């Protein structure tokens, strides 16, 4: 492993080992196969993570194009750019893309790429499951967009309330496409969540006890648990109940046969509210390392930040009825959710206070990542305040389903998730690609983005309170909503321009930007000890961790773990709480079965829209895939190793 800045490598050579030969051997052992076949069979978490990030970013651009079309249509009253049918498909696809195909996958992708590096592991816990998650997600992406271009894009909104999304009022297969897309994204998220949980609990470097885990990893861990509890709700609702209502004539949401239209809302929002925190919490995990690095100090209140993350995750499951305040649910019950919705502002507030305190008592370098953090504070706090307003039942009855809510949700999602995400891109781009993103273009991107977001979304607060509901394809000139809509559309143009600058910056820098060393920012996390980009095996020797900020430890040489096999893919398993070395585990080689199984799931779920026979075919093919998966993966290479490697310090 490469050394902390300015220090000599602290690797220790056992007798006979040669550093260069070891790294070449490990590289050949852990890397993906070459060529197209290698691309299909890749299980390296960094390959999968990179793919995930790029695909999710393309989805961000697609969602952005849909948003641009919507803003172009709404810029003038009674505009004729888009008819109602096209507009309904576009706004539904915009929401679905951004929530299901960009936000959650991007956040889990960052976890997939960085959690193993940050905890000092060679690999993620279940590499093939990881690949399977990506391929399933990709099947969903292709499926949705092929259908959108085939005039079968979903058109009932990204949360598809019944009975509008039911069989009677959404004829054809548009909503079926939506329901099955949710299935694919949910499976992918679960695969990523399971991976993050097990990697974080069982594969940390020795010495990285639970109270030394980086806050990025804490955020990913908490979110992974949220995914495990929340995603099955939406899968049950959409894949099972809504798809069944539409295809095989069940009556879950049919009041005439004893069903209930509100049932959908409860099930969906039980997922839907945690979903936005699933998007938001990883972004908070990005903020801490950026603040630490660019304030040159350890963050204030590590324990408070961890507890705030966990508390937010718990509370997030108790808020869902605040999306349903306009329904005839008894007001006493609604009031409980008012209290919970206001309460959740407290842990988030604690986090913001800790970060500001860190910056206040540090020495700031206003590089682009930190600028995005400042932009996040400005934008997200606004969204948080309007969120507290919306927690009030009486006020929410005025603002619900209006552009006020559109403004709020964009302030918290764009401000609270996308801004930290852009900061994270600038911060970790060198680690992924080995090159730095341009600072000047970065600053232009930041300022245009910040201005664009506020010009686009602030007027929407006023529009909503002036009577403009959501999801309208046009409005009459006499309502007086024209001028502010035009301003919002101009802001959207500015956002588009800023994102274009980012894309130019990213492509240009990837191809020929300034080379970054292992640790261009002087950071504290373990991922900065690996090369940029990290080799396929992450760390030549697993580091031993003695504090929360390993690379800021004032020690001359870093202890490492040696003795992991160089002839088969082996990872170190450590205990859950104290990360003491526990056992060695063999990891699978590259495999085609994840892709195969993802395609089979595609056949099964997409086929279910058309005929039950395809479901049977898909399941049969999947069984073959599961058998193949279980039977392969590890190469036979010698007896099982049971020795526990000992941490080695200098001077052996």
């Amino acid at each position, binding site marked *: 492993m490469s050394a902390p800045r300015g220090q000599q490598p602290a690797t220790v050579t056992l007798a006979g080992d040669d550093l260069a030969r070891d790294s070449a051997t490990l590289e050949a052992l852990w890397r993906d196969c070459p060529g197209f076949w290698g691309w299909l069979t890749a299980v390296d978490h960094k390959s999968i993570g990179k793919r995930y990030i790029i695909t999710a970013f393309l989805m961000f651009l697609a969602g952005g194009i849909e948003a641009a079309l919507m803003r172009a249509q709404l810029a003038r009253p009674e505009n004729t750019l888009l008819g*109602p049918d096209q507009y309904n498909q576009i706004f539904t696809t915009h929401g679905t893309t951004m929530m299901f195909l960009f936000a959650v996958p991007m956040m889990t992708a960052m976890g997939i790429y960085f959690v193993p590096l940050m905890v000092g592991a060679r690999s993620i816990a279940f590499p093939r499951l990881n690949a399977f998650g990506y391929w399933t997600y990709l099947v969903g992406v292709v499926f949705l967009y092929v259908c959108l271009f085939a005039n079968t894009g979903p058109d009932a909104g990204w949360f598809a309330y019944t009975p509008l999304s039911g069989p009677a009022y959404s004829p054809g297969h548009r909503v079926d496409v939506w329901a099955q897309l949710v299935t694919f994204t949910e499976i992918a998220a679960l695969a990523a969540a399971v991976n993050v949980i097990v990697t974080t609990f069982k594969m940390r470097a020795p010495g990285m006890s639970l109270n030394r885990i980086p806050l990025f990893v804490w955020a990913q861990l908490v979110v992974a648990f949220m995914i495990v509890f929340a995603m099955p709700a939406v899968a049950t609702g959409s894949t099972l109940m809504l798809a069944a209502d539409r295809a095989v004539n069940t009556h879950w949401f049919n009041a005439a046969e004893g069903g209930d239209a509100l049932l959908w809302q409860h099930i969906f929002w039980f997922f839907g509210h945690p979903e936005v925190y699933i998007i938001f919490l990883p972004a908070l995990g990005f903020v801490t390392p950026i603040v630490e690095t660019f304030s040159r100090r350890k963050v204030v209140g590590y324990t408070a930040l961890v507890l705030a993350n966990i508390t937010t995750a718990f509370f997030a499951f108790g808020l869902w009825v605040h999306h349903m305040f306009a329904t005839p649910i008894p007001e006493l019950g609604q009031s409980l959710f008012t209290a919970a919705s206001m309460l959740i502002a407290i842990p988030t507030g604690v986090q913001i206070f800790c970060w500001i305190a860190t910056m206040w008592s540090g020495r*700031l370098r206003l590089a682009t990542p930190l600028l995005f953090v400042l932009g996040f504070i400005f934008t997200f706090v606004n969204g948080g305040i309007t969120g507290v307003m919306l927690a009030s039942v009486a006020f929410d009855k005025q603002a619900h389903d209006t552009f006020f809510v559109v403004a709020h949700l964009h302030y918290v999602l764009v401000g609270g998730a996308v801004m930290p995400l852009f900061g994270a891109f600038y911060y970790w781009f060198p680690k992924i690609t080995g090159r730095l993103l341009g600072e000047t273009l970065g600053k232009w991107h930041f300022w245009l983005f910040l201005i664009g977001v506020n010009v686009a979304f602030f007027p929407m607060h006023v529009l909503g309170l002036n009577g403009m509901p959501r999801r309208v394809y046009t409005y009459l000139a006499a309502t007086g909503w024209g001028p502010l809509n035009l301003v919002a559309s101009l802001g959207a143009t500015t956002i588009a321009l800023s994102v274009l600058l980012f894309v130019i910056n990213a492509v240009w820098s990837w191809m020929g930007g300034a080379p970054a060393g292992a640790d261009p920012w002087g950071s504290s996390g373990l991922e900065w000890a690996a090369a940029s980009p990290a080799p396929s095996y992450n760390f030549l020797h697993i580091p031993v961790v003695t504090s929360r900020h390993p690379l800021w430890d004032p020690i001359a040489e870093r202890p490492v773990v040696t003795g992991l096999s160089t002839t088969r893919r082996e990872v170190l398993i450590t205990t859950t709480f104290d990360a003491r070395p526990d056992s060695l585990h063999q990891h699978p080689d590259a495999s085609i079965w994840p892709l195969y199984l993802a395609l089979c799931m595609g056949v099964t779920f997409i086929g279910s829209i058309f005929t039950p026979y395809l479901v049977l075919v898909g399941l049969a093919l999947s069984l073959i895939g599961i058998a193949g998966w279980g039977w392969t993966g590890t190469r036979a290479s010698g007896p099982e190793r049971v020795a526990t490697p000992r941490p080695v310090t200098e001077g052996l």
Partner: protein
Amino acid sequence: MHSFFHPGSPHANAVAHLWWWMFGVGGAIWIGVTLVALYAAFTRRGSGDGLVEPPAAEHRRIERVVSAATFVTILILAGFLVYDFSVGRALAAHPQRGLTIDVTGHQWWWEVTYENPDPSRRLVTANEMHVPVGEPVQFTLRAADVIHSFWAPSLDGKRDLIPGYTSSFWFTADTAGVYRGQCAEFCGLEHAKMAFYIVADPRPRFEAWLKAASQSHQAPADPTLAYGERVFLASGCATCHSISGTQAFATVGPNLSHFASRSTIAAGTLTNTSVNLTRWILNPQVVKPGVGMPAVPLDSGPLTALVAYLESLK
């Protein structure tokens, strides 16, 4: 009036009041947090890679400040909560209500029925309703197909109309005027063009309107209007619409009994003028694509008579 910022009822007023407080305090917090962060950003800049490690005393001070800020946040939120609950309780009080209006949401129009214990005096209309000023009115809400939401921002918050549920709410309009509302739950193709009007009249004017609206029409004396009525009955209009006093009593589409007394056509989509009505009848799909009414192929003679007849239905 169509805005949260122009309340026309005590309910809307109370909520606006609550919101302005939240806006003030929340805005101050937002500005305060921003200023603090900006101050740190400007005054704490420095170069050099060395780490900053504040001494223990400084650290304890920082912790105390963060804790104090958290405590203040909790107090403010508690204050909001108490204020909000008290507003909610006040809004939930039920005075005795005289007038009950049933609203049923359809794709994409509002069916309005004025309840009356005497069924023969029940009044059915569409998209526009009158209420007396200063008296509480109860609305009973149902949906015929999908979820809609009844929202007149100047008068009260919105309530969803959900198939299978009957919900109700009430408010008092305390200022005379015309209040506009719009459907606020996405309900399909023409959700954007599903507005309604509530006209708040002083009691005497309301009584007069109610009396006029409850009356059936006599056969028109004017020959053009009589011809127009025959066109209405013969051209398929009566397949879906009803006009009291005629042979048309279908309930598929909006009741047109006093169509000329309404200010708009097609749930607020067009102003109610002869020109617009002609345009609408000839092809509603151009104005409101997807609406349930088909294009009615009429020649100009019958069409003119039909429009004149409809515009005579005060």
